């Protein structure tokens, strides 16, 4: 069969071949959607790379009690700052010359082994260790310095502390804000220990008590040059926080302490949550069962994709227009009901009834109402006066009267044979 004849007898021949341009056009939506999703994902990733944290004294925290301001300032002044929460990384970073290691908080989270490791790493190159308000954990690091925690609750130190020592950086910094803790040498007159910013004010003089011998060097900043590693204890954490670093001489003191060397390692120890969580129900489920249940997820996904695939688009039906014509009648009825046009409605119904009756009684088109009523009276045997009242003269004032009268009309009409 030739191609033309084939087409003529059986209809046009179609094939699924679609030109590339048309395919691209129909795929355009998907391509655009993919690009938009890609851009969104990339943007979201970029924006969330700054892992903000709210931990106190954390080097990435921009909260009031964070230390990001200090770290960034040091970086801006040419100090090579390495920040980490990982102990191994901190130790390896500390094992280089001309380095200071700063432990801003959580010193008690470090085990004795950790402290030994850090100190030995620092000791190889004679590097410094700076602790910020370690509290009783100071004992792990050195036995030459102790926390002076026997302050009387009645003391009210001056809000600003004076250097009161020979340390050049402290003398340059001048007065700083006062904290709540003091550190002191364990034995009175230990060599190499310099203490600055002792607490002063009413009630402070009597604080030298049992643990710290009277007259020992004490203060909120204490340095030990002759220990296992050179150690500096900054007794007041406020000095380094974003909120208070700009007050008094805080910034000057802290920055000069930390920028003595070219490298600074900030190690933020964290408490490991290595505690065993209480065993949950899921631990009692056998592994093979759990694996089977998890495998059902991709299985169900495949099932949904198989079932959900549509076999071609929905067939389109072009329906002809249909106008519901009766609605205009309903609309007109509602209008006259709302305007209480009872007289009009009654007149129409009377006229229609009379015309129908006249036709049924074989009366001519031109017969008057009175003649028709006379005939109705003859046929039904009703009183012509009543009929005249119903068909012509009666007026209605309420809906009830209208209903009543129309029902009478209908009744009479049904009586006509």
């Amino acid at each position, binding site marked *: 069969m030739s191609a033309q004849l084939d087409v003529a007898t059986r209809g046009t021949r179609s094939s699924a071949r679609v030109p590339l341009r048309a395919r691209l056009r129909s795929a355009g939506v998907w391509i655009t959607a993919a690009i938009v999703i890609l851009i969104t994902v990339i943007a979201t990733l970029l924006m969330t790379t700054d892992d903000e944290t709210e931990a106190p004294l954390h080097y990435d925290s921009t909260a009031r009690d964070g230390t990001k301001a200090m770290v960034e300032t040091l970086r801006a002044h040419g100090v090579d700052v390495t920040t980490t929460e990982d102990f191994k990384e901190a130790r390896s970073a500390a094992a280089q010359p001309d380095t200071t290691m700063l432990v801003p908080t959580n010193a008690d989270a470090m085990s004795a082994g950790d402290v030994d490791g850090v100190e030995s790493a620092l000791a190889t190159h004679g590097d410094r260790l700076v602790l910020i308000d370690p509290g009783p954990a100071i004992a792990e690091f050195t036995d030459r310095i102790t926390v002076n925690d026997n302050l009387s609750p009645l003391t009210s130190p001056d809000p600003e502390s004076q250097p009161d020592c020979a340390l050049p950086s402290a003398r340059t910094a001048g007065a700083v804000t006062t904290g709540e803790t003091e550190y002191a040498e364990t034995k009175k007159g230990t060599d190499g220990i310099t203490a600055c910013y002792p607490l002063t004010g009413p009630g402070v003089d009597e604080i030298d008590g049992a643990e710290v011998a009277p007259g020992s060097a004490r203060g909120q900043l204490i340095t030990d040059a002759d220990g296992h590693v050179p150690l500096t204890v900054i007794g007041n954490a406020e000095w380094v926080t974003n909120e208070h670093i700009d007050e008094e001489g805080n910034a000057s003191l802290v920055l000069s302490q930390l920028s003595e060397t070219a490298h600074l390692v900030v190690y933020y120890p964290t408490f490991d949550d290595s505690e065993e969580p209480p065993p949950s129900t899921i631990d009692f489920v056998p592994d093979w069962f759990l694996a089977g249940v998890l495998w059902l997820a991709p*299985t169900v996904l495949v099932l949904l994709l198989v079932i959900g695939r549509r076999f071609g688009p929905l*067939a389109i039906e072009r329906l002809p227009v249909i*106008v519901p014509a009766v609605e205009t009648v309903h609309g007109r009825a509602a209008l006259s009901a709302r305007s209480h046009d009872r007289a009009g409605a009654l007149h129409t119904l009377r006229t229609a009834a009379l015309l129908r009756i006249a036709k049924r009684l074989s009366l001519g088109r031109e017969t008057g109402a009175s003649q028709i009523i006379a005939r109705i009276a003859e046929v039904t045997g009703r009183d012509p006066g009543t009929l005249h009242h119903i068909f012509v003269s009666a007026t209605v004032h309420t809906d009830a009267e209208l209903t009543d009268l*129309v029902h009478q009309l209908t009744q009479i009409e049904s009586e006509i044979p």
Partner: protein
Amino acid sequence: MTARLFLLTLVGLVPVMLVPGWPTALIVAGVIIAAAVVDFFLVPRAHGLSLQRTPGPMVRLGDDTHSTLSLINDSTRRMRVDVRDAWPPSAGAVRTRSRHVLDPGAEKQVRIELHPRRRGALTADLVTVRSSSVIGLIARQKSIEVPAAIRVLPPFVSRRELPSKTQKLRELEGRSAVMIRGMGTEFDSLRDYVDGDDVRSIDWRASARAQDLVVKTWRPEKDRRVIIVVDSSRFAARRCGEGTVFDAALEASLLLTALATGAGDRVDVIVADARVRAVASSRQAHDPVHDLSVALAPVDPELYDANWETIASAVLQTSRQQALVVLVTEFDEATIADDILPILPTLTSHHRVVIAGVEDPSLQELTQSRGDADAIFTAAAAEEEQLRQASLRTRLRGLGISSVQALPEQLPGALADLYIRLKVAGGL
């Protein structure tokens, strides 16, 4: 993706549960994905398939028809395809889906039964082809446009009235040989004078020759012309009983065409709203009713106002000879007063005009509603509508224009009766 891929994934449950752990799950998933990807490239593309649709014969609404879909494998590979032959719902297609295996160059014909539920030209929808390989994990699908349409003719239910109407027409024609010559009559024969014949019809010349009184008889003229104008404007789109007004109008014009062509008249049908939508003529037609059905089948009313000037000029162009013009439209006061009355004189000067309208059965129902005041107001509004139409018809009669109005199923018969009356009275 197919059910087989789902089964494969389900089978993957066995190794995953025997050796629980992430490595097993990843290996099984990898194997399944690899198999699916391989299968995806093994699937023959639907490109290689040529499709043809051959619509079945035209049918009247209510009868069944079919359509044949030819699948031709033009590619060099064996194709396993699922085919969906989509038709609009009103085409009433049954079993549209089928599965085939086609060797290279092979051809297969799929016949699909159609039970149309609507008059008109029903256009076929897309053909969807889903192709899969021997493994059958992945199916590739494509929807292809394969043009075809089936034409469903108006049902012509009133056909059953045709024998009785034809019979009636013959009887009346035979009985009433019109004695008086008039419009639309032609000379029939001479016969002897009997008492009671009109003396005016005595043919004196023939009487002189025959030595007896002879009268001329006349009969209704043949080869008259009937022009049916069906209004397809917004009035024709009204719902009326089961169908629309337009459906009833089509029925009426079909019956009138059958009757008039049977009686030897020539019928032209014009379907028009703002423009002329369809024209059909019984001239040179072997089967006028069928031709007319075919011409009218694809026309549906549109929401336009009818342009009666266009319609009048179409009528005048159709016939210069005197004709019976039947306007099948709506008795709407505004339309008749503003649009039809101005063009009536041009029509009536040449032709005899009849207006036919469809009565809304729901209007009749509404006039019967009684009960509370709202029902009575509704009845009054419906009565008013009917009174208005009745008075309009009275006024048209005053202008010498006959009109007929009936319920949708009675309109064809009523219009045929009017035609018979006019024909017998020599009014054509």
